[in-house]
């Protein structure tokens, strides 16, 4: 245990100028059962020990399948959910235990863009009110100033500034998402957490939003945490990528390093599963098909959580000893949580199944 803690620590080398640091972040949802008095019988470990550091101006992509805890993690960082354990540091200040009032000044610095452009805008409120809410709450300016600012924001995200007193239902999905972006931008935040901002949109509109996010980042020096299940989208927008599985980080690396040389078999499987819109390339390669479903986070598998589905599973190792999230060869910042990392990429299915010359990869690490 102690060794693992240590390894987690070593995986996170802090320099002190990070914008946001999450250390061993945990969020458990209690499962209660009882006839009259509810007692906790188990917990859903939605996020279970996630650590990462984020520098200003950088985009951290987070990928994983539904139920891997990526959205829960985002809400913990935003303090919309109280983390069960771990520590969140924003610009060197520990914000984990801050009360709602103490948190308020930080709310100006970090904003969120939500997944559902329909549910995330109050249908009874005018666009002007929605975008201005943060300005009103933090009392930034007079009504006239706020109104002007709202119009400017609408302009910035590519909407007609005249439309500030329309209602959300008068906009299409893509335009609504732009309103969501304008709301997040209103108080000039440093960090924007994007929780699947394009997954509910049509492909042609998705590109508009992605371009907009990139433009805004360039113009205002924004820092993004970009959560998505679509590996293409994450690759397009991220500088660094973190792959999550069952509440844990299984691999994290620079974008190119991760997509060109994935180390974790799960990342490999994900990459091979993404259909390529090119008939010659797409049909030439073989999908690595994982067996079964993602296990329940209430009762995760022992040791390496991926072992029941892993093509490189080695009995007596993977289900006994939990691998640490450390460098497994390649660039120093490339870490993977696997005893038998992939030697190269792409691999054939047969190569994938031979769990490599285990000893050598371990010593190399």
């Amino acid at each position, binding site marked *: 245990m102690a060794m693992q803690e240590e390894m987690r620590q070593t995986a996170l080398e802090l320099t002190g100028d990070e914008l946001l640091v999450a250390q061993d972040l945990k969020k458990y949802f209690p499962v209660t059962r009882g006839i009259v008095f509810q007692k906790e019988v188990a917990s859903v470990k939605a996020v279970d020990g996630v650590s990462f550091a984020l520098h200003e101006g950088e985009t951290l992509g987070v990928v994983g*399948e*539904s139920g891997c805890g990526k959205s829960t993690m985002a809400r913990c960082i935003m303090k919309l959910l109280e983390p069960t354990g771990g520590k969140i540091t924003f610009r060197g200040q520990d914000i984990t235990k801050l009360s709602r009032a103490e948190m308020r000044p930080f709310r100006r610095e970090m904003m969120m863009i939500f997944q559902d452009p329909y549910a995330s805008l109050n249908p009874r409120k005018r666009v002007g009110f929605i975008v201005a809410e943060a300005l009103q709450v933090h009392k930034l300016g007079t009504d006239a100033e706020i109104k002007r600012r709202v119009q400017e924001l609408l302009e910035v995200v590519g909407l007609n500034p005249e439309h500030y007193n329309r209602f959300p239902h008068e906009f*299409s*999905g*893509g*335009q609504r998402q732009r309103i969501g972006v304008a709301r997040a931008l209103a108080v000039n935040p440093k960090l924007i957490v994007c929780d699947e901002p394009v997954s509910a949109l*049509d*492909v*042609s*509109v*998705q*590109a*508009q939003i*992605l*371009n907009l996010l*990139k433009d805004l980042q360039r113009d205002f020096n924004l820092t993004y945490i970009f959560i998505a*299940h*679509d*590996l*293409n*989208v994450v*690759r*397009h*927008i991220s500088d660094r990528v973190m792959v999550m599985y069952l509440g844990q980080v299984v691999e994290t690396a620079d974008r*190119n390093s991760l*997509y*060109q040389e994935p180390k974790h078999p799960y990342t490999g*499987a*994900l*990459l*091979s*599963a*993404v*259909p*390529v*819109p*090119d*008939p*010659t*390339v*797409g*049909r030439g390669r073989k*999908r*690595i*098909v*994982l067996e079964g*479903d*993602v296990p329940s986070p209430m009762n995760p598998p022992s040791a390496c959580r991926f072992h029941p589905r892993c093509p490189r599973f080695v009995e007596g190792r993977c289900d006994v000893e939990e691998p640490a999230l450390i460098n497994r060869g390649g660039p120093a910042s490339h870490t993977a949580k696997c005893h038998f990392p992939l030697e190269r990429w792409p691999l054939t299915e047969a190569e994938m199944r031979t769990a490599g010359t285990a000893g050598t990869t371990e010593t190399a690490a």
Partner: protein
Amino acid sequence: MALLEVNDLKTYFRTDDGVVRAVDGVSFSVDKGQTLGIVGESGSGKSVTCLTIMGLNSKRSAISSGSALWKGEDLLTANPRRLREIRGSEIAMIFQDPMTSLNPVHKIGDQLSEAMRLHEDVSRKQARARAVELLKAVGIPRPDRRLDDYPHQFSGGMRQRVMIAMSLINNPDLLIADEPTTALDVTTQAQILTLIERLQEEFGSAVIMITHDLGVVAEIADDVVVMYAAEVAEKGHVEQIFKKPHHPYTWGLMGSLPRLDADVERLVQIQGQPPSMLRPPTGCRFHPRCPYVMPICKEVDPELTAVSDDPGHLQACHLDEETKDREAAKLLAGMMSGQTAS
């Protein structure tokens, strides 16, 4: 003769706000054992096309015209009894949302054998045996025991497998899959696509794959129909569509996709939003969003015509071929250059 031949299919829905033209003159055909991909954004009419072919639209609000010849027999005018015979036995369908497509109060086994017993005179036992066989074929562990489980005891991916098993139980000649993987995760999607491919080889069925994902189409389709605003924008062989796309909408779709194998700083974006089919734009329906729009586009709806050097490749655009060749080449080159850069 094609297995299914759809000619000038139109489906309009009467709503309180007016008539919605969900499908407006769509033609395509599917041959035996072939896979047809229909791509388009939500609301482009791809699902309604297939529901119309199956006769599953609400009779009260939908009006359809045109024809859908199934082995020479028009499904649109077939009597309901004949249509029921064909549905589920010759043409089967898989729906988008596996969570709601199975009846929650019936056992999986009963739902599977119902599909079989509706069309074939088999005993309960035989139907059950066949159900076990198919559940096994779609990769459900311990199928004989899982027959007595209810849908809520299955995960989304597993339910979609059950749906596939159910659709294949009568060895259909055509399987219509309406966004079968949209609600699923990418690893589950890989499982389902691999499964459909394998089963298609095994059972020899033709497949219509409806999707908004160009990647899925590129990987499994032989022919592709690109739909925009209830009309066909372009159709042809998968190689033709992806190697030499001829419609600005197709260019937009391809350029707007971020790709695993190519780096681009900015994605090509299609301006604006898909139109409302209550009041579709005049002329070419893509013209309000088209970067190459010409005066003629606003007035005349382009016919679906063959590309001159490639008769199997049809497209509906006024733009001259020279420009198209140039632009398509530019787009593909842009993506290629990205590829080499990465």
